[in-house]
């Protein structure tokens, strides 16, 4: 059943995606814009990768996604090999996350997330699988666990953690040990909240005191074991508004100021002073902080528009999941939807100071070829499922 049937495509989803891509190119240009004489050529690279992504997207829509289910173990193996290859290359800023190729670099962890969605979907939707058995449970844990450990070892903890909600959603849907999962979730949530509160009221370390970070009056708890100082700092920045605004809190403050100064209407395209004056970290303004540039220049109206687009995209993914003709399509669309959601939420939340700062890019918006293409692959798979949906 290969081929594209225009009447059966989800045009809304496609249009949403293309709008986001166009804005991405425009604001990657803006993020690198310093003056009429000084701007980067990143926007053209972004455009090229977007076009490449659209080609792959079309190809995936053309193929019946069943072939993906058949090849799921090969895809999984390929992703693992790529994750291992990463360790052959030199560390960049202390992390080995990329495979450098001429002209661009790829980040295998992005592909690994899609591979996990596919493999879990295929594994759980195979007809002889009994979902509520321990064997199935451990099978799922094994499928996720290997890439999780590899990505965490890069180290890229935040990316590896996004595997958790994907797996959780798929397993809950398939009915694998639901009670256990729900209880586990509750415990993790509770532990997380406890850790955050502890860190909030924990005394700063000697070293930090020497650097001029002043302990607040309510910081009286002893030092929490396990976590490293830099990890605590990220959380402390997020739970305490005024923590070390010169050092660890600098990006958060600047990003908040940028977004906040946008106001209702924004400062206008190419007029974001926080960005142009270099208060946003220039290395990541166009990637992790693209929403910040966008919100500064287009204001709340633009920000709300972007949020609406993502809501539509995610809603459409869920719709595909509901209307898929088989279990595999359903699981894969659900996994991909949750994956995209994690990125959107964590990225925007960190720019407006709701979550600690991590390195998760914003799907379809952030600068980065390999991420653009892998997002397109994911959405192409979803579109492929939709095209072959059940007809009521």
């Amino acid at each position, binding site marked *: 059943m290969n081929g594209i049937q225009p009447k059966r495509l989800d045009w809304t989803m496609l249009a949403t995606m293309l709008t986001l891509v166009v804005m991405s190119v425009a604001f990657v240009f803006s993020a690198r814009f310093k003056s009429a004489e000084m701007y980067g050529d990143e926007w053209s690279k972004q455009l090229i990768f977007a076009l490449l992504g659209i080609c792959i997207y079309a190809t995936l829509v053309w193929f019946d996604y069943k072939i993906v289910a058949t090849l799921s173990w090969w895809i999984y193996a390929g992703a693992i090999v790529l994750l291992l290859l990463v360790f052959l290359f030199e560390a960049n800023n202390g992390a080995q996350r990329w495979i450098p190729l001429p002209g661009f670099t790829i980040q295998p962890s992005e592909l690994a997330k899609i591979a996990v969605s596919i493999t879990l979907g295929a594994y759980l939707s195979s007809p002889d699988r009994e979902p509520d058995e321990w064997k199935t449970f451990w099978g799922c844990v094994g499928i996720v666990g290997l890439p999780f450990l590899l990505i965490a070892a890069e180290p890229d903890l935040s990316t590896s953690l996004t595997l958790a909600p994907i797996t959780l*959603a798929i397993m*809950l*849907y*398939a*009915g694998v040990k639901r009670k256990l999962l729900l209880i586990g979730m509750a415990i993790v949530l509770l532990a997380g909240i406890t850790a955050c509160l502890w860190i909030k009221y924990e005394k700063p370390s000697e070293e930090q005191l020497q*650097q*001029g970070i002043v302990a607040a009056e309510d910081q009286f708890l002893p030092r929490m074991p396990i976590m490293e100082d830099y990890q605590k700092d990220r959380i402390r920045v997020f739970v305490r508004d005024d923590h*070390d*605004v*010169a050092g660890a809190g600098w990006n958060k*403050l*600047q990003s*908040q*100021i940028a*977004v*906040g*100064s*946008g*106001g*209702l209407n924004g400062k206008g395209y190419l007029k974001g*002073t*926080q960005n142009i*004056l270099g*208060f946003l970290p220039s290395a990541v303004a166009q990637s992790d902080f693209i929403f910040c540039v966008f*919100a500064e220049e287009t*204001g*709340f109206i633009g*920000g*709300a528009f972007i*949020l609406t687009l*993502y*809501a539509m995209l*995610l*809603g459409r993914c*869920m719709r595909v*999941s*509901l209307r898929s003709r088989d279990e595999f399509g*359903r699981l894969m669309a*659900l996994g991909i*939807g*949750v994956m995209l*959601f994690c990125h*959107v*939420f964590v990225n*925007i*939340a960190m720019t*407006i*100071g*709701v979550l600690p700062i991590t390195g998760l890019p914003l799907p379809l918006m952030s600068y980065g070829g390999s991420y653009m293409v892998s997002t397109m692959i994911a959405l192409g798979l979803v579109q492929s499922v939709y095209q072959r949906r059940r007809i009521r």
Partner: protein
Amino acid sequence: MKQKRETSTLVIWVVFGIMMLALSFLGSRLWKLQVRGKSAFDEVFQNQSVRRVRLPAVRGMIFDTNGKVLADSVPNYCIAIYTEEMRAPRSATANVLELMHQIWAKVGIPPDVSYRDIKHHMAQTPEEPIVLYQGLDDGRLGRWQNAFGPWSEQHKIPGLKNHDPLSSNAIVIETTELLKRPTSTAANTLELVYEISERIGIPRKIRFQQIIDHIILQKPLPLLAWKNIDDETMAKWADTCSSLPGTDIYYQPSRTYPFAETNAHLVGFTLEADAIREEEESGKKIHFDMRGIKGRKGLESTYNELLEGEPGYQLVQIDASGYHHRDLQTRPPKPGGDLQLTIDENIQQFALEALLTRQDGEDPHIPVKGACVVLDPNNGDVLAMVSSPSFNPNAYMASKSYRQALLQDPFSRTYHRAVFGQYPPGSTFKPVAVLGALRDHLDYTNAVHDCHSPYYVGKRRMKCWIHSSYGEHGEVDARQALMYSCNVFMFEMAQDLGYEPIRDMARDFGFGQYAGLFPNLDDPQQQKDLKYGNLPDKAINTIDACNMAIGQGAVLASPLQMAMVAATIANGGRLYRPRLVKKWRNSPDSEYNTNPTWAIRQIDVPVEALELVRGGMHDVVMHPEGTAKKARVDDILIAGKTGSAQYRKKVDGEVVGSVHTWMISYAPYHFPRYAVAMLVEDGVSGGRTIGPRLSKLYRNLFEYDGTIVKEES
């Protein structure tokens, strides 16, 4: 199976619900931050940014060996104006003042009206024009017209009738035109400066251009309108100006030297540090710099890094126009470390006092040019080191005119003669020459030469100093040669033995080498000092060898160098590195580190040779026929050697001969505690110029340490 299907669908709906909830939450936060927050914190967020201001640290102290403070950090009180509070429009008087200063800059001389006149005019008859200049001469008029042309062509200047502000050699401005114009921040600041100046009664120090520059470049920082104000001014300020908005007392770190002139060359001084602008400091951008002070001479400069400490910074939030909005975070500066010197301030004063004691026949109108160094021969500690004439570092830092006057001073007051002075050592070199000869030829102790006049080396007539007064020393041995300072003996010795033993010994004594007075604190071995003096590698002929033997010709040394010679002879041949810093610490809270005593080398000299030279030096002072009888102090045995090094200098284009008078000395003779070198430029002779001064120094020294009882007088 049916039931499972339904719950599974429910999972999708729940996931979808969570997504939408989360995105709505983001939307609401975005609203709060961008729209609601914008109205609530409009001032904070609109185009605001954070700037980093560098704050200088408190400079460390310099102490003498007893803990007396030689260099102290004190606050320098300033009257500051906070320009961010000067933005509200003020009266039109500010406009008039601004225009007046613009015209002033073009005419080049102060206007004929005062602030009081303008205020009075604006209060009484603002509709009338006011005359700024009257009866200008042609030169000034031409200058004004040249500058006014381009100025008025560019834009219409309110307050000036555009092409004719002149009427019969006077410049007139129309104050009516200025009445309704809003005043600029710079004009407001200028008016406040005038207002404060009038209330306190001190003249305005800051120029209008400086105010404009400050507003352009350093908006978030306070503008220091008067620096270094005294207590009286501060009291007046508190009485009359503290109610004025936008002005406050601000203090800058500054330096003071309690024993100003005594240690000026040694301790040095500080000046305002160069501004650091836009410097990346470990990845953190510095936007503004509250300039601190930096050591520029002497120990202040050599150990600047230690004394300076580590600057801190303050993050300030600035508003849309670039003015200070609020302070965010301060990392306090780390105060600088302290130095404790081996210098004893009392001895330092004895040395200067002795040096400045004029002897009969010295011109009282010319300052004494010279230096004195006192070392502890047992470890090389520098107990005193003074140069004359001196200057006042406190005045130097405070007054620009004093600095300029010093530049033109004919006596080179800032020249650290004790360390960097380069003089022929003259006869004070003879003990080194004799030691050198005796080390290689010990039997020369018995040599006797006849000092007679005239005396020839080859065909060249050479002189002993006594020949000038038609005398002769007759037959002298080595010890007597030192006592009489007989040149002929030295000439004969150089001819008999060659110049090599003398040169080798001089080299061992450190002539022409680094002395390591200012070693790097971390590495005592490091000798990053200036080269001391000069020692030629060889003598080109016999005459040259003879001159080397009496310390003339190419041999040069500094007073410090000669004090090291005295100390080394006193302690039996151990050449110590002169130690100036006794101990140091990196911050006022940390422990002191000791700067170790360190011998450069042990010079291997036969005991007999040493005894002979010491005996000779003993006789110089203690023998009835010695050259330095005037250096004696009752009850103390003193050894020494005089020197009178002749040189030629140009006075009013004419070459005249003059004498650098020297003495090196140590005492007490048997167990030396002090080794001294004293030099006075253009003196009479070592014995007559230096002898009495040395006696005074020793008397004070031995009274100070309790060896002799102070005479009741």
